[in-house]
C-alpha cells in the first residue's frame, strides 16, 4: 500500500514539473466594500464588476475579490458582514450585490473569464459575540451564497463566470480556534474554494515550524490556507511576508499529505513591494508553486 501511495505521489510530481512556469501576471483590482446601504452596495458592486471586465488583462480567468468586511452573526439565524463603513449587511444583501457584480461584468465583458468572490474577514469575531459554532456557520453560509451566485450566473447564461469565497484571515484579529471554523464551515457546505487573502503575521521567516501572533502556530496558518477547500492567495506586502508563507508551505508539506501551492498573491499599492514584485518575491521562493493570480488593493 505504501508503494502504491509513493508511486502516485511520484506521478503527481511529474505533473507538477510538466506545468508551465507562469510569467509575472498583471494585477487586477480587488475592492474594499464601503456600502452605506443595500442599494449603494448593489450599485457599487455593479460598477466594480463592469470596471473589472473593462480592465481585465489577458484571456485567463481572474479573481474579482470583493471584501465585504468582517463576518458577523446579525441575529439568531442571520449571518452576514459588517462593512468598512460600519454598516451591517445580511448575506441576502451581499448576494444581491454579488449578483449585480455579475451583471456588471457581463455587460462590460471584453475577454477572459472571472471568479467573483465573496470576501470577508476574521476581524474580532469573538468580541462581537460570535462563538466558534457561529464562525462555522458563517463559513457555511458564505459558501452557500457563493453557490447561490453560481446558480444565478448559470441561469442567466453568464458562462464566462464562476464564484467562490475568500477571507482575510489575520492571526492578530482572532484566535486560531475560531478562525479555523470559517474554513471548516465552508468545507462542510462544499461549494466554494476558500481563498485566504490574509497574512502569516508574526510567523517565522525561516525554518519549517514555529509560532505566530496571537497564539497561532504555523500549522494554524497552514490549516486556514490549505485545509479542505482553502487555497492561499496571501498578502505579500513585504519580503518578510514571502518568507513567512514559504515556511507555511514547507510546514504543510512536511506534516500533512502535501501538495501545497498558491493560487497567487494579494498585493497592495503603497507598501514595501510593488504588486509585480510581490508575486515575484513569493514565486522565487516557491518555484512553480505560485499560480498567476495577482489581486491588488489600490491598483
Amino acid at each position, binding site marked *: *500500500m505504501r508503494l502504491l*501511495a509513493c508511486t*502516485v*505521489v511520484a506521478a*503527481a510530481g511529474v*505533473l*507538477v514539473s510538466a506545468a508551465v512556469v507562469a510569467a509575472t501576471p498583471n494585477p487586477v483590482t480587488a*475592492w*474594499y466594500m*464601503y456600502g452605506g446601504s443595500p*442599494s*449603494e452596495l*448593489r*450599485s457599487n458592486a*455593479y*460598477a*466594480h464588476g463592469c470596471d473589472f471586465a473593462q*480592465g481585465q488583462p489577458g*484571456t*485567463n*480567468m481572474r479573481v474579482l475579490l470583493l471584501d465585504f*468586511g468582517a463576518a458577523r452573526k446579525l441575529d439568531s439565524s442571520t449571518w452576514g458582514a*459588517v462593512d*468598512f*463603513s*460600519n454598516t451591517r449587511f445580511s448575506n441576502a444583501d451581499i448576494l444581491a450585490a454579488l449578483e*449585480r457584480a455579475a*451583471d*456588471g461584468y*457581463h455587460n462590460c465583458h471584453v*475577454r*477572459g473569464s472571472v*471568479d467573483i468572490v465573496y470576501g470577508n474577514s476574521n*476581524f474580532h469575531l469573538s*468580541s462581537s459575540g460570535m462563538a466558534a459554532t457561529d464562525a462555522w456557520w458563517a463559513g457555511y453560509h458564505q459558501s452557500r451564497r457563493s453557490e447561490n451566485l453560481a446558480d444565478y450566473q448559470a441561469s442567466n*447564461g453568464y*458562462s*464566462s463566470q*464562476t464564484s*467562490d469565497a475568500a477571507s482575510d484571515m489575520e492571526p*492578530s*484579529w482572532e484566535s486560531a480556534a475560531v478562525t479555523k471554523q470559517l474554513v471548516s464551515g465552508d468545507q462542510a457546505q462544499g461549494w466554494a*474554494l476558500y481563498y485566504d487573502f*490574509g*497574512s502569516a*503575521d508574526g510567523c517565522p521567516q525561516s525554518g519549517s515550524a514555529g509560532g505566530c*501572533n496571537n497564539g497561532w502556530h504555523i500549522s*494554524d496558518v*497552514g490549516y486556514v490556507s490549505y*485545509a479542505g*477547500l482553502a487555497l492561499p492567495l496571501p498578502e505579500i506586502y513585504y519580503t518578510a511576508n514571502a518568507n513567512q508563507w514559504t515556511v507555511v508551505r514547507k510546514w504543510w508539506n512536511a*506534516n*500533512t*499529505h*502535501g*501538495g501545497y501551492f498558491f493560487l497567487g498573491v494579494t498585493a497592495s*499599492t*503603497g507598501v514595501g513591494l510593488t504588486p509585480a514584485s510581490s508575486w515575484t518575491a513569493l514565486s522565487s521562493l516557491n518555484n512553480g508553486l505560485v499560480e498567476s493570480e495577482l489581486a491588488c*488593493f*489600490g491598483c
Partner: protein
Amino acid sequence: MLRLLSARVGVAALVGLAAGAGGGFALADAIGGSVPGPASKAAALDRRASVATTDSNTAPAPAPETASRPIPARMLGDDVPVPVSPSVLRVRNGWLVSDGETLVAVYAGAAGDEPSVGRVVIVRQNLAAGKQTVRVVDAGFTGALAIAAAPLGRAVETSAQTGTLRLRAGGGGLLTLDLGSERVSHDAHTARLP
C-alpha cells in the same frame, strides 16, 4: 493559468488517492485529527478550470439604479473592521467620509513591523471612475498615531476629503495630516485646527 490549474486538478486527485490509500500520509497531530486535503479541492478546481471565455447569453442585464448616498464624516471605533493588514498597520483608530461619489478613509496607528514608527493609511475610492487607491504615509519615530481631531458631520462631506486631521503621537505630541498633499507635518503647533 488554466493549464497550470488543470495540472493541479490532476495532482489533487492523485494526492488524494495516495492519502486515501493510507500509505504513511497520516496528518500531523498539530492540526488536530483528520483534515481534508488536496483531493477535496479537485472538483472545485475542475469546475473553475471549465469556465468558458464567452457568455452564452449576449443580452445585456439591466443596470441597477445608481445609489450614491453620502457618508457624513465620522470617527471609526475599534469595533469597526479595518481593511488594512496588521502586517502593515497596527491600527489605533480611523475616520471616514464620502460625498456619494468619492470616499476617503484614514487609519492611524503604527507600522506593522516597527511599533515606534507612526503611520497612517489613506484609502480613497472614486466610484464614478472605478478607481481605488491605498497610500501609506509614515511620520517617523513618533510612536503609534491616533486621530485626535477631524472634521465631522454632513457639512464637510466633500471639503474634508482634502482637509486636515490632527494626529496625536505616542509621546503626546500633535501632528497634522494634510489630505490634500497626503503628508504629515511635525510642526503641529502652527497648524490650524480642523
